[in-house]
């Protein structure tokens, strides 16, 4: 791990200068101010039509300055760290306090020091030539798996972010976050019909990510289930029992419930859960977690983007709503400790409560028994985008593939359907939780105002009834 000196030198500032900028930010009588220094290097390679004929790198550098007066936020940033420019940005942000009533106490946090993603091989130490053989081998491996494949695209991207955070409580927090991702897509043609499949892996780790194990996993994933995809039809739509397969169905949890647990929506009274703290909101035995401490996970951070250490937060324990997901603002408002969920896309944005790795813990049921218990329903195992209305709790998510369940058995493959429901109702309607929790390590990105890397997970679960789109 780098020392504080490394970061101070990188951003060309001294501790005294940090204090001067913070003092300027507080000059109109604000309650709290923080500085967020960021230096990110991005790198990407694209293999298409057999050639890595596109690639590049990108640099982003700057400092975001936030000022809080009560819960009100003033925010400005500078794309360089010269004192004059930082002072100017601090003055702009400090204006929030002018003529604003009310104040609030922001308390220091006791941080546990994590090292969740030590890099064995720093991405910054390697050029494009280090990864070209991997991309070509992966393409070759995928083509070798299925003669129906006519196109393969492979993308590799990585980033390394140096962060230094300093606030008016005197807390200086520094860290370096890596993120490496590989995604593949393949186009299959059979009897004049075209299908495409995607697979991806993303981790907070160094270039040691790139290797034979990843290559095999992605090749396996991208061809898995393609026969069923060609056979798949749309089912008759309507209300039916839905069994969610382990892993990627965690997107349901993220969209349908997770956003409604974010404390900003609750503080403003907008969430469906804003008056349900301490209440039973789903069956006993159900535990819903947002976890920033999963080693190498895409959603993890040693600290959040306010300098609060990562933790594992139970939103629902044994069916009872026990916590929202807090940044410093909402934690102060509710009089609780921040949960390490203050996250942001980059220094251009102020932090807000965001999820990290959101999952439901395993239950006791055997997944085979869960399917066997369904007379008529649908089993879903591959998802893409979802959406939720926070106030109503209404959600949808798109099922790329799955199967009909008839008399306890998986029968006809299905695809390209939407499922719609109400989050709290779906939680309350959970009839069984499998013993097979799986975290999905795909390139999930949440887009609430800003884009941040997240992940999700789920054991196999059965929901009594949801609306499934289909033919009439």
């Amino acid at each position: 791990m780098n020392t504080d000196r490394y970061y101070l030198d990188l951003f060309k500032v001294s501790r005294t200068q940090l204090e001067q900028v913070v003092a300027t930010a507080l000059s109109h009588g604000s309650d709290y101010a923080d500085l967020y220094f960021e230096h990110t290097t991005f790198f990407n390679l694209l293999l298409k039509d057999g050639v890595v004929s596109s690639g590049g790198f990108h640099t982003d550098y700057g400092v975001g300055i936030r000022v809080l007066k009560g819960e009100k936020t003033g925010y400005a940033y500078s794309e360089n760290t010269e004192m004059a420019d930082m002072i100017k940005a601090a003055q702009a942000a400090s204006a929030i306090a002018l003529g604003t009533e009310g104040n609030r106490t922001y308390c220091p946090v006791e941080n546990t020091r994590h090292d969740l993603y030590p890099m064995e091989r720093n991405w910054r130490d390697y050029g494009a030539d280090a990864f070209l053989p991997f991309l070509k081998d992966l393409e070759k491996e995928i083509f070798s798996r299925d003669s129906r494949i006519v196109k393969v695209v492979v993308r590799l991207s990585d980033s390394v972010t140096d962060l230094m955070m300093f606030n008016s409580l005197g807390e200086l927090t520094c860290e370096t976050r890596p993120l490496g991702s590989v995604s593949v897509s393949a186009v299959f043609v059979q009897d004049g019909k075209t299908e495409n499949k995607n697979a991806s892996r993303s981790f907070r780790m160094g270039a040691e990510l790139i290797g034979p194990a990843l290559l095999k996993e992605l090749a396996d994933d991208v061809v898995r289930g393609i026969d069923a995809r060609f056979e798949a039809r749309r089912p008759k739509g309507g209300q039916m029992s839905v069994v969610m397969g382990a892993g990627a169905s965690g997107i349901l949890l993220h969209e349908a419930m997770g956003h409604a647990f974010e404390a900003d929506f609750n503080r403003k009274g907008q969430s469906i859960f804003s008056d349900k703290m301490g209440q039973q909101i789903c069956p006993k035995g159900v535990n819903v977690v947002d976890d920033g401490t999963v080693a190498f996970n895409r959603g993890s951070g040693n600290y959040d983007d306010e300098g609060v250490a990562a933790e594992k937060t139970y939103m629902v324990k044994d069916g009872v709503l026990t916590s929202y997901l807090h940044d410093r603002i909402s934690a102060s408002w509710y009089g609780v400790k921040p949960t390490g969920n203050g996250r942001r896309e980059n220094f251009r944005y102020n932090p807000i409560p965001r999820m990290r790795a959101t999952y439901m813990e395993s239950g006791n049921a055997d997944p085979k028994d869960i399917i066997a218990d369904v007379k008529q329903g649908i089993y879903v195992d591959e998802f893409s985008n979802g959406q939720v209305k926070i106030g109503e709790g209404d959600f949808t998510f798109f099922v790329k593939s799955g199967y009909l369940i008839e008399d306890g058995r998986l029968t006809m493959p299905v695809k390209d359907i939407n499922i719609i429901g109400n989050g709290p109702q779906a939680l309350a309607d959970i009839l069984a939780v499998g013993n097979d929790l799986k975290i999905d390590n795909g390139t999930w990105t949440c887009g609430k105002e800003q884009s941040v890397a997240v992940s999700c997970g789920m054991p196999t679960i059965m929901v009594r009834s949801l609306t499934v789109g289909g033919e009439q």
Partner: protein
Amino acid sequence: MITVNETDIARFCIEYATAHGADAARVSLNKSVMDGYTLLNGELDKVTHSADRSIYLYLYVDGRYGTFSTNRLEKDELESFIMKAIEMVRMLGEDECRCLPDPERTEKNAKTGRELDLYDESYENNNAQTRLEKAKSISIFSKTKGCDSYSLISEECEYSESVDNNYVVDSQGFEGRHTETMYYCFAEITIKAADGNKYSGFWWEAAQKEQDLDCSKCAVKALGKAAGQIGQKKRRSGNYKMVVENNVASRLLSPIVSALNASAIQQKVSFLEDSLDKKVFPEGMTLMDLARTPGKSGSRLFDTEGVATKDCAIIKNGAVRQYFVNTYLSKKMGIAPTVEDLSRPVLMPYIQGEDLSAEEKEVSLQTVLHKCANGILVTGFNGGNCNPSTGDFSFGIEGFAFSKGKITHPVREMLITGNIVDLWNNLLAAGNDYRPSARWQIGTLAFQNVSFSA
């Protein structure tokens, strides 16, 4: 505004890159400023000031290609950045199709960036106080008490002003500028109905010129959207006529636009492969790209390659007339280049069985509801997807049932499912009630025989 010093930096990048091994290069310098004011329940909640400046560098070296960007514009840093970039491009695979566009095709008249009248001079006179006043003018929180059927939970209002500048220069001599201002207001209101359920609604307005932005109705419309959902009922699954409001209608056109992109066609993930000059859509359906209309959102003189845009038909009377083909894909696919993508789509008015060419007939939401008589009016989409290879789609919807041309009640938890080409071949009407502020000029739409699940 982009300064002389900054245009010099952009030109320096071209000169330095070509002097150190690049065969050709393009630089795009982007600079923007945004001031935003957010109110929560009528009180100032957040003030944001943003100022961004970055350079994108497109390098062609020894038949290879790479893209790079940085917001570090100091000369010494740029020199090492460019040297590293050239070194990286040399590691990539050769691809003879990578090159700059034919200079004949590039725009020649984008000299000031203001040719399209998208810049509002009054922007320079505004200050924090005037912007805060505008933000406050959106709010209705203190004036709205609720009623028997609902109470107001929260109101969030946002007002922002921004200016975006783009300067593009390449090693063949192309030079182009684009400048535009944007004024934007937004309101989101959450209410609690008498039955305890919460509903939220939002509305936004945007304009290139300050005088064209009306903030006063934004929160009222958001409240109307929220309150309109009270009393939702499930409607039985079945095939219905579907009317789609103008503010969300673009959702059903965007899969077609994506499928017309040469990139999707070349990668065989387009359901409109081999559709050029073929009648795929109904007679009378015409989609124009009116890229060069002064003062209108989305207008631009050149695309990201510097290629001059032109006003043209994308779909004419149901036949596909143009793919979006950039220089690279033109060479790769052996077809004529066009522009990289759509600028300002305009779907021309249409009513099945009527000839609208001879008269300036208004085709509004009311016209379309009356024509359809019974069905479901879609006012919002909630998630969903369209398979790019097949065009099969499924979208969550929200809206209202209507009967005899009149809205009866809001519907709950409904999905539409089908194939996007089939859907458009069931087009009954396309309105000309375009939202003035929208880049996509798509009016009210109506389709028959749409499959709804509930």
